[in-house]
């Protein structure tokens, strides 16, 4: 059976490279945590302080927020909003598109400023976009020949649902 949507595969090497880029950004701008979320709502990587909220739910809402704003941008005649800023009383977040496949979310508080986070975000997004683009290209080359991760596991799948 052919699946309609393209799939991600995240290797330990990908995760390391993405996390290193995100941790460097956090150090440079004194933000406390960052999450990389795929445009469909799945959490890819989390870096920095472990958030007190449920990251799965957060990732879903982030993707929905970003997608809804994309559509708003189109209604306004722009192709998209490449970044979004939400300001809270104590906590704020800056979201940025990464290679049109993912969203980088940076969470920060009064220990830093929006200006500094924005300034450091741009090179970090470029670096992460390069990694994500390479992952996309790799998955595209593997395409249909990608090894089926559950090959031969039909019985195990059946048992899961008994």
């Amino acid at each position, binding site marked *: 059976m052919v699946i*309609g949507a393209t799939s991600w595969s995240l290797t330990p090497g990908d995760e390391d490279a993405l996390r290193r880029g995100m941790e460097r950004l956090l150090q440079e701008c004194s933000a406390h945590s960052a999450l990389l979320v795929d445009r469909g709502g799945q959490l*890819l990587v989390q870096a920095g302080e472990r958030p007190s909220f449920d990251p799965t739910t957060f990732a879903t809402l982030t993707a929905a927020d970003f997608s809804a704003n994309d559509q708003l941008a189109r209604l306004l005649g722009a192709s998209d909003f490449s970044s979004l800023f939400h300001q809270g009383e104590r906590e704020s977040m800056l979201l940025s598109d990464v290679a049109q496949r993912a969203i980088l979310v940076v969470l920060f508080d009064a220990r830093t400023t929006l200006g500094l986070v924005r300034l450091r975000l741009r090179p970090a997004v470029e670096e992460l976009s390069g990694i994500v683009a390479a992952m996309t290209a790799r998955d595209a080359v593997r395409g249909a020949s990608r090894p089926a991760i559950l090959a031969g596991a039909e019985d195990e799948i059946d048992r899961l649902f008994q």
Partner: protein
Amino acid sequence: MSMINYASREINCKLVYYGPGLGGKTTNLEHVYRKVAPSTRGKLISLATETERTLFFDFLPVDLGTIRGFKTRFHLYTVPGQVYYNASRKLILKGVDGVVFVADSQIDRMEANQESMQNLYDNMAEYGYDLTKMPFVIQYNKRDLPTAAPIAELQQLLNPGWEVAEADRQRLSPDPYHAGEYLTSQLATGEWIERATHFEAVAVTGDGVFDTLKAISKLVLKTLS
């Protein structure tokens, strides 16, 4: 769009419950939320209006178990059924791995069912997804109501089948959930067609809810095997 994380050994898949307004999509998720162990599910998030109509989506993450050392995690979404929320509906389909169409069995909801089914095909096509080649099941909900249409009539209107052009797939394929019925079969005209698996349900009491979820999850996992 399944996401396979080799680092944390997780497979994440996205399921979307689609269908007309007030058909029971949210009720399906609420039943799953109530019945699965809290340790295997996350929070149920509802972006709804003050009258509890789904405005954007409902979301529930559920762990279904481990296969080949990979934790299988399914993200269940509903879409807003009301016609004028199409922009939100389309956004939720992005990256979908499997679709459950929740039809309202009541006779007077047939037009709404058909309109929603057409809208599903259209929105999927706009993303370049082919529903006939993806995990897809239909749930006929509200079977307990006296105004429910017969299953045969619902099947004819909402699940008439799509043509099977590939010669190697033109063979009888039994429906594993309905003895004596076939998912792929040949019409009297000689044309081969394939239908989606269907389930009967009463989502408010939970009847058929897990049968539907298990079937669609299994179809999605089998795309990885």
